[in-house]
């Protein structure tokens, strides 16, 4: 019973800290909350407590690494983000390595290239153009506290160049706990995207979209069939509550279909949308696809990924 108490105590502490740190103003660097893993994108970003893949664990939850069923997981993805909206192209890669039953590490990188826009001066006169760019680099460490409980810590560096000669850097990370109460179940609690504030040209301070997270995962296996359900709950320090629910059906661990729905208020860093996805896996090599819809700004987002697990 010690493990559950420890997990609950840690979650309470993180949540209280989150409320106390409620941000003023809009969330900066929202791209840090946009999932690039086609597996979780297919489930509407739900799956923080899922241990099936750890390649992008440095972006999400490194606490699951010690409970990863294999040793190494590496993946790369291409994402056409919000082609009807922000129209950003993302190229990402990540890898996770479970060193032993107690500890594992992960690395991830993502590069974002936005749509070129026209520069206008105060009089409305076009004076040039610029292509905004962003990137994020993360390193994660997961270690088992007990046989059922682990902790994960991600260190993140994000960089945004939205305008010419306007580069903003941000440093932060995620702190997660993972608890496996029984086979097929998993729970995660923690704080996601807790970054230091950034400032604009006017000196105003903005927080990044940090949230307190509580996530759960359940997997049911029967013969060649596997059914997984995930729920992620995020309470953003900026004041919005978001929830994501996703499910996956796997056949012979070779073919996967996924679907999910993300709920978020209109002004939340991630508003509501739905997603579907699919994947194939053979001899450790996995190809996944996700399609995001039901949101006029984010709709038609496509994510394609290639991974290898052994």
């Amino acid at each position, binding site marked *: 019973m010690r493990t559950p108490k420890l997990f609950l105590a840690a979650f309470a502490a993180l949540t209280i800290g989150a409320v106390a740190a409620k941000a003023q*103003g*809009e*969330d*900066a*660097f*929202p*791209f840090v*909350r*946009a999932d690039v893993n086609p597996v979780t994108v297919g489930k509407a970003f739900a799956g923080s407590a899922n241990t099936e893949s750890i390649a992008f664990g440095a972006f999400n939850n490194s606490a699951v690494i010690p409970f990863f069923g294999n040793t190494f997981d590496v993946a790369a993805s291409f994402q056409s*983000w*919000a082609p009807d*909206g*922000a*129209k*950003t192209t993302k190229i990402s890669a990540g890898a996770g390595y479970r060193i032993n039953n107690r500890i594992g590490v992960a690395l991830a990188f993502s590069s974002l290239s*936005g*749509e*070129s*826009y*026209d*520069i*206008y*001066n*105060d*009089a*409305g*006169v*076009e004076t040039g153009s*610029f292509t*905004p760019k962003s990137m994020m680099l993360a390193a994660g460490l997961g270690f088992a506290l007990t046989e059922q409980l682990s902790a994960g810590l991600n260190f993140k560096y994000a960089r*945004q160049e*939205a*305008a010419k000669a*306007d580069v*903003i850097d941000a440093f932060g990370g995620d702190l997660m706990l993972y608890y496996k109460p029984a086979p097929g179940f998993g729970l995660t609690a923690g704080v996601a995207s807790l970054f230091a504030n*950034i400032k*604009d*040209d*006017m000196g*105003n301070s*903005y927080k990044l979209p940090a949230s307190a997270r509580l996530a759960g995962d359940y997997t049911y296996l029967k013969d060649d069939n596997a059914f997984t359900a995930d729920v992620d709950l995020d309470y953003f320090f900026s004041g919005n509550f978001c929830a994501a629910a996703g499910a996956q059906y796997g056949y012979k661990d070779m073919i996967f279909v996924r679907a999910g729905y993300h709920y978020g208020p*209109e*002004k*939340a*860093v*991630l*508003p509501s*949308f739905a997603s579907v996805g699919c994947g194939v896996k053979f001899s450790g090599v996995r190809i996944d696809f996700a399609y995001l819809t039901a*949101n006029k*700004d*984010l709709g038609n987002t496509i994510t394609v990924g290639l991974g290898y697990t052994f």
Partner: protein
Amino acid sequence: MKKTFIFAAIAAFAIFSCSRKEITEETVVPEDQPKAETRAGVSRYQKGRAVVTFDDNMLSLIEEDLKDGKLATKSSSLNSAMKALGVTSYHRVFPDAGEYEERTRREGMHRFYMVTFDQETQVTKALDELEAVPGVLKAEGVLKAKRRAAVNDTHYGKQWHLKNSGGASYLKAGADINVEEVWKNYTTGNENVIVSVVDGGVALNHTDLADNAIAAGSNGSKNFVKNNYNIEVDDHGTHVAGTIAAITNNGKGVAGVAGGDYANGVKGCKVMSCEIFNDDEYDDNNGSDETISNAIKWGADHGALISQNSWGYYADVDDNGYISNKEYNDLKSLVVPSILTAAIEYFNKYAGCDNAGNQKAGSMMKGGVVIFAAGNENIDIDPICMQCDVVAVGAFGPTGKKASYSNYGSWVDIAGPGGDSDINYSSSSTIYSLAPSNKYAYMEGTSMACPHISGVAALIVSKFGGQGFTREALINRLIAGADDTYFGASSTIGPKVDALGSMKLGGENHAPTIAVDASAPTSFKSWETVKIALTVTDEDGDKCTVSASNASGAESILEEKGAFWLVINALNAEPGTYTTTLTATDTFGATGTVDFAYTIQPNQAPVVVKPFANIISGAVGQIFNFDITAYFNDPDGEPLTYKFNLNDNQIAHCNVSNNMLYVTSLDFGSTEIEVSAKDARGLTATSKFILLVRDGDSNGIDAYPNPVINNLYIRTGENEESTEVRLVSETGSVVYNKTSVFSAFNPLHIDMSACAPGVYKLTVKFGCNTYKKTITKR
């Protein structure tokens, strides 16, 4: 300079030779001829010619035949006498005068016939035989006459005769005709006053005379020697004419006594050349009685009011340089031919008149004045001046004394400057006037004094002439106005001519009167400048000036071509009611006044009647033009001046021309253009508009600035329209989502100051158009 000196020397020689010593005509009848002593002047008669005066009975018998050129008439007695004398021709001395034949006959001038006969026949014999014919009233020999010799005009300084300021030993201040004040205050001449110059032919085309000369023609100048209209230019005639009417104040040459005021557009009196002399000494018509008489009559019949005559009969018949007793006595007993007397009387009576002898409408004078030179022999007689009704003119020199050569006597009516080279033996003491070929020359003699009198007479007529003005009034003003004290009580050449004195003659000065045009407005808009006619009348004909009291500062007086105007320039005064006193002052300081009350209305500022609308230029280089008068109005109705001001001259170029505003777009962007209309008093109205220059082809909307610091503005290129605007973060978080109404000139304002730095997506939808833009916040 050397050439000038030589010319002057030659000219001087010519003057002496032609004016005082040169002219002698050897037509002397031998003294031993029978009856020579019974007819005075017989030695001067031309051979083979006589003037016969017929009575009415004889004329009724012979006139038709003679008119047809026949020698045989219905008078047998005349026919016999003519045959005996070897008569070869008859003709009327004064030919049919056309329009004026009626009065010619009434005056009996049709009775005179020139008879030409055998030159071998003694004149006296012929005259006796002719007078013996019944019906012949008189037969007279034909005599020949001789000639009697100057304001910015460059040679005016040489014309001491017009303005003698002294300063040299041969000059005496005031020894002139005292005409400058007349020019300034009274008159410089009148082109309706014509002086017939009975003399050698005048250089009518002389550049210093032409404007004041009457061209040759059937109603103008005429050659009476040749009886045609080809004037043969003569030194003497030209000099005389120049003294009268050389163009004054024309920046060159000399001034004429009545030569107008060229610089101010005032024409002078006219001279008509009636040529009676030429250079052909063998031409019987040259200087003959018949020629001269016709020339004098011609003037009366063709508009002349003054007959200028600088000629006379020979005194020094033998031309030996002095007058012998015989020559003196011969001249003294000379009877002026009837035809000349008749011509002079005709001129005096009919000049300026119709056939009935009444003053013609438009004529400046009733009757004419014949002015004669007294002669240059320094003797006390002259037949014409003594026997005829003429104004006889003696001469004085530059020292103000009788000229050494001038004839004299109580019969001399007036003295004019004729020069006197005996003073310093230099041409500088003689008279400077015109010479042929656009030249100038010195001459002296009563011939030169005479045209000064003719010129002053012309000025008098110019000033005082009009309906009712008579020759007697002219002569009175000329003689009585002259200075009868100048030469002292013992003067033998009459009083010194005094042009100013003649103008002032009449005693008490009368104050002028001044009146304002009764129909003139009395209330003026605050911007107006109004000219109001003033009528200034001076009973004495004095030249007047007009002034206005400075009631408001708006008044001034304008004089144009002798007319006065009160000018009210309302701009120079504040609105209000004022009374100005207008004063007319004559030459002698007498004044007349009239008050004129007027009101300057309050000024009203211009107003904007239609604001300028903002304009969108869809491309660089577009030109927009506006008729500014459609946008502004002035309640006072005054013309406005327009200016513009734009806050960014990189965006547009403006100019105003002929009340049109032209705006040319130069670059993308916007600028505010302020147009102002200003009235004359500086009150203004302004109207502003914005010129937005957009790249209309490539951009449906403008979202600016981008990147945004705080505020994002969104405008369309359309008029105001309901527009959906959605702004989301790159993860779809909605920042702004509203339907708003905005336009190019009323842009939508989105406050993004609370938005985090980053990339946003803007979607603007209006009508069928949807535009998406990436917006960044710094």
